[in-house]
């Protein structure tokens, strides 16, 4: 590892401070844009709380940046299935997010049964499942089951999409 990457790695939390600062500026900018005539019935108005929130976010951003530069760092969260001894495995996370995005793009057009199958199968694959046929069957079964379960049991009709008329 080169000195530059190790230095950046240790300071990746500065990104959080940046995000907080950006969120603060955004809230502030949005609040400034509100037009409110003073009214006696609402002396606080819609701007006050956004100003306070923006202030809180920006103060936190600055203090977090200082804290991180001084060597402070947040406590990474553990869990039953979490192994923190290896670095973040982007080869798992990115395909997983990909499956999620595919579902968003497909759901209204192709319908839940197809998009849900893609979502589940893609997620299982991303997480390391390699029983392609068995995973596929489970995916289709889950999607069909939830489609009919929601329709018959809960009265919610999920989009049928391409399979309209068949289902």
């Amino acid at each position: 590892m080169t000195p530059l990457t190790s230095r950046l790695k240790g300071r990746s939390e500065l990104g959080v401070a940046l995000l907080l600062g950006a969120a603060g500026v955004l809230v502030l900018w949005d609040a400034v844009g509100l037009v409110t005539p003073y009214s006696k019935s609402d002396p606080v108005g819609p701007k006050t709380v956004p100003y306070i929130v923006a202030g809180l976010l920006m103060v936190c951003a600055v203090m977090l940046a200082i804290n991180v530069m001084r060597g402070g760092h947040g406590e990474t969260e553990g869990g039953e299935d979490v192994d923190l001894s290896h670095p973040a495995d982007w080869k798992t996370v990115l395909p997983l997010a990909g499956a999620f995005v595919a579902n968003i793009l497909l759901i209204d057009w192709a319908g839940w049964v197809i998009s849900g199958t893609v979502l589940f199968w893609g997620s299982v694959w991303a997480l390391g499942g390699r029983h392609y046929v068995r995973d596929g069957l489970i995916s289709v079964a889950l999607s069909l089951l939830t489609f009919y379960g929601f329709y018959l049991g809960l009265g919610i009709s999920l989009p049928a999409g391409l399979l309209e008329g068949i289902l």
Partner: protein
Amino acid sequence: MDVFNSLMDGFATALTPMNLLYAVIGVVLGTAVGVLPGLGPAMTVALLLPVTYVLEPTSAFIMFAGIYYGGMYGGSTTSILLNTPGESSSVVTAIEGNKMAKAGRASQALATAAIGSFVAGTIGTALLAVCAPIVVKFAVSLGSPSYFAIMVLALLAVTAVLGSSRLRGFASLGLGLAIGLVGMDSVTGQARLTFGQPLLSDGLDIVVVAVAIFAVGEALWVAAHLRRTPLHVIPVGQPWMGKQDWKRSWKPWLRGTLFGFPFGALPAGGAEIPTFLSYVTEKRLTKHPEEFGKGAIEGVAGPEAANNAAAAGTLTPMLALGLPTNATAAVMLAAFTSYGIQPGPQLFASEGPLVWALIASLFIGNFLLLIINLPLAPLWAKLLQLPRPYLYAGILFFATLGAYSVNLQAFDLVILLVLGALGFMMRRFGLPVLPLILGVILGPRVEGQLRKTLQLSAGDPAGLLSEPIAVGIYIIVAIILIWPLLLKAWRTSRPQAVPAAGAAGPLPQDVEAGSDVLMAEAESGARVAESTGSNNQPVHARRHQEEP
């Protein structure tokens, strides 16, 4: 007696065959989802929320009662059989519970947890039934200034007392409040933070936010650090307890209940502090100190009871004041709101039958939990072996389904992913999740009370201090905020103030670890809970370093 009659009416509603069926479904679903690794009670409730949308409110809340206690119970099974609890409230149960399981006493550990949960849950629910109307009587006299103060206290207490870093807590709170701002301002109708996007003008659906932060964030986070070597699950048969176990369990159950209920009812009380207190107490009072650290049944019975009593305690401010004090209650509050029901002092008057049916079904749910879960324990243990790709793919699948079915908009899924990424980031950089969720839910209410207060006082800020209760609460808020400074001053004046942790038994190292727990907890609430999150190594490890 009024409470008694109302409660009996509640039982009459809750015991109709259909409602009883919903209670059974709730308990089974709640336990099943709660047992799954990575899914705590809050997430369980959030994921199952859409299922209840089609039911009429009474049935929905009866099912909720089952899900709530079921999710709680499921978490303790996981921590006993796996030893790596995700929920900080189950950390203490795991300390002795897993040792018992490893020593071949898993059945007894599960039994004392189940029966202790039942005892504590029943006493806790009875206390809830008695206390809530009293709190209501007190609360109807409160005006907007006091409510504003109470909500500010709840937000600050959760942010500043729990968690290991106050700074990160406040950062999380700020993000939550910002998310809560999105949408149409309720007084002037102005769009805030909607960026011209009409789909945002109704605000972000709380179900979508909760599912994103809890379920999607967790699934992505675990995916990034998935343990490749499977965990060892201890096989278990039918839970049972011998005469000796009963004798050693019943006092810890009652003491745990006494710790749990009041802490659960306090803002920022939560279940972490009472479970630790119960553990330390049992360790001091036990007649078998040599077993502590090797699987003492008292160390499971007490904390488990405290945990469940705290769960009941949490419902007191939730129902009587509309004030959630932990993530699960926050999600339940969201569920109430989605039915157009406003928890708070008026609730008992306007929706009396519903509230009492809910309280009655808490009793029923508790009982069902006991008779369903004792025989089903081996099955729950099998659930722990579910292949992880299926488990986390399933969490994403049902999270998507739940969030989508609220409004049937693909746009909600985009928000789900964006906030899921935020949840991932928060886990990576140690930002606590609870302040964010409470900020989203309480933020708009706090703003509403603030505006009402200043409307009454015609814009004079002194109106905020117009009620004595409000003034008292601001004093508490001030103490919470300057507490760390006071503590620092106190420590510099008395550098070595470690309290003697009872008589040094045959396991001095472990007894000391207990007092470490007490000390650390006095410093900053559940910091220990966080640092012992993976297992209880750090406490012991730290102890080893201190050994001369």
